[in-house]
């Protein structure tokens, strides 16, 4: 009774309880969501884990070139459970990217970027950009060899921008090379960006809750029969997914904590010794491959006029490889959303997945010999998929008949005993 009165008192002034009830409890969700719909809530949970562990790391970390490496080792050796916190944070970054990449591929497969979810999708792409920046700067903080040389290679890319490039690089460095001011600003920004991500993720969810989730049929929900209340149906399903995810996460943290990292980052940064191969973390490899695929100047044919130098071309291609996702709602305008009812699109979706994996594989190889050509072919295909194939299919692909409603699709599947 007391509780009810308190609740009413608060509710009258801040309608938090009705809000939660509407958005988490009664919130109608399509009843046919499969496990690919688990990755959104998982991404949110990992974001919280990263912020929590990051704050504890920051209490012991020293952003100074003379102390950063040893302060991380102190966390590993002397801080109570410091090794645990750091391994969660380090492997959490990898888990974050796995989950978000799966989340994105889910969207690509089921056409979740199409109306009325374009802004929702674009905010997702902005989150991806911020995540990449955050992870890149985080990797610099322990100030190992890969930290230093990764930072040097990537910041140097900005010098390729015509006219203002060199000034941008000086601004990033806070000087004339990657040095203490660089480490300091990277630490500050690494602390800041995750909170920007929280804000954007909030908007992302607000936009989501306007029209609700897409679903495997791509047919919008119409009647009550198509949906179930979020709680308990999807809360329990998300919990189960969380359990499975945490098991995978724990296997890395406790039994292969350095498996996804690079041994060179256990060598303190040394500006005088360049590592044999400078490779970014695995989650950047596909984009690193795109960057390195542009080995040629782009100019006006049969003249010496160079419009875009190779280096700048690489930077544009790499940025474009992520940025093009934001244009997807206008590149794929086919009225049918889900690949389930678009057999041709479906085939090409899987080609695209293979292409992305090939890019990731090439990104980890030295840029020499046959790898250059494989990287170039895979890069060309990447852009071909978005810029040519999807617009072409939008106009020419004959889709299969759509179910009249989500409920119809579910009933039909039940009848034929189809599992998938």
């Amino acid at each position, binding site marked *: 009774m007391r509780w009810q009165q308190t609740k009413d008192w608060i509710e009258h002034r801040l309608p938090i309880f009705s809000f939660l009830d509407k958005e988490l409890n009664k919130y109608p969700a399509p*009843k046919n969501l*499969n*496990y*690919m719909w688990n990755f959104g809530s998982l991404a949110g949970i990992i974001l919280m884990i990263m912020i929590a562990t990051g704050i504890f790391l920051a209490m012991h970390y020293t952003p100074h070139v003379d102390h950063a490496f*040893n302060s991380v*080792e102190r966390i*590993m*050796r002397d801080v109570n459970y410091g*090794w*645990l916190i750091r*391994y969660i944070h380090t492997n959490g970054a990898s888990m974050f990217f*796995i989950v978000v990449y*799966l989340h994105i591929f889910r969207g690509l*497969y089921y056409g979740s970027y199409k109306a009325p979810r374009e802004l929702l999708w674009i905010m997702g792409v902005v989150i991806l950009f911020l995540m990449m920046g955050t992870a890149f700067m985080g990797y610099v903080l322990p100030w190992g060899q890969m930290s230093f040389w990764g930072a040097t290679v990537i910041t140097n890319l900005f010098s390729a921008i015509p006219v203002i490039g060199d000034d941008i690089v000086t601004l990033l460095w806070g000087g004339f090379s990657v040095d203490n001011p660089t480490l300091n600003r990277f630490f500050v920004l690494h602390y800041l960006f995750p909170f920007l991500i929280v804000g954007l993720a909030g908007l992302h969810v607000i936009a989501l809750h306007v029209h609700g989730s897409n679903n495997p049929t791509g047919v919008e929900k119409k009647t009550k029969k198509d949906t*179930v209340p979020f709680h*308990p*149906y999807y809360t*329990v*399903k998300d*919990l*189960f997914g*969380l*359990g*499975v995810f*945490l*098991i995978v996460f*724990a*296997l890395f*943290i*406790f*039994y292969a*904590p*350095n*498996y*996804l*990292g*690079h*041994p*060179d980052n*256990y*060598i303190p940064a040394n500006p005088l010794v360049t590592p*044999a*191969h400078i*490779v970014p973390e*695995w989650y950047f*490899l596909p984009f690193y491959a795109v960057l390195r695929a542009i080995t040629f100047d782009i100019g006006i044919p049969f003249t010496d006029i160079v419009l875009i130098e190779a280096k700048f071309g690489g930077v544009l291609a790499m940025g474009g490889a992520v940025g093009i996702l934001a244009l997807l709602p206008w590149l794929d305008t086919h009225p049918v959303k889900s690949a389930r009812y678009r057999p041709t699109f479906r085939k090409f979706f*899987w080609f695209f*997945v293979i292409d992305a*994996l090939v890019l*990731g*594989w090439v990104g*980890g190889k030295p840029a020499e010999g046959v790898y250059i050509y494989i990287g170039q072919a895979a890069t060309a295909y990447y852009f071909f998929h978005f810029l040519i194939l999807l617009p072409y299919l939008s106009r020419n692909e004959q889709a299969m008949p759509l179910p009249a409603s989500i409920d119809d699709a579910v009933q039909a599947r*039940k009848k034929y005993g189809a599992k*998938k």
Partner: protein
Amino acid sequence: MRSILSIVLFSVFFSFSALAAGGNIHLPEKEWSFDGFLGSFDRASAQRGLQVYKEVCAACHGLDLVSYRNLEILGFNENEIKAIAAEYTVVDGPNDEGEMFERPAKPADRFSNPFTNEQAARAANNGAYPPDLSLMTEARPNGANYVYALLTGYKDAPKDVKMMDGMYYNEYFPGHQIAMASPLSDDLVEYADGTEATVDQMAQDVVNFLSWAAEPNLEDRKKMGLKVLIFLAFFTIIFYLMKKRIWSDLH
């Protein structure tokens, strides 16, 4: 979609893991007691490894990140640790007169470094720098096997290889020419427990010791991991059953 997804996931992991492995020189794979889900340090071997480190490697290599007190994990008691520390002197200060002074090392001190700075280390080693060994087994791909292979991998140079001055041929060092002469030879140290000090034995012992030095919390990590996994498995099963139950009225 689901089954294809798991295939994709696995292939991603395996293709990227090939990267982590790196290097093209094939290393012999040994079985280490600290490998695996229940891995733990072979204390007797690691203690002998400490002796090898102290009597051989410490002439050139530091172990800057490890304190004497950490040796407790390897089974040394307080008095033994005090005695080990006291074998070394460290520079402390300034005292009330503003002077730096020397004193015997205490358990809380870091392992004493043979050189005061990199230049001194290079000067004593023909210009080559003996790197700190605290993280050596983590700082090389397949580190434990690599250090073992390196220590046992000295050979006469093949005839077609031109050795540079002051370099020694080693089968497993990248480029095969290393500035460290083979640090181990049979019976170089005398083990108190009567173990025969072959090169192979000393190499194994010092790798056990260095693997501990690189990650002194490894045993805690693996033990906690097991508990966490059991806990998670239990709750995941519960959630699965709950999920089935709750959804059963729909299916």
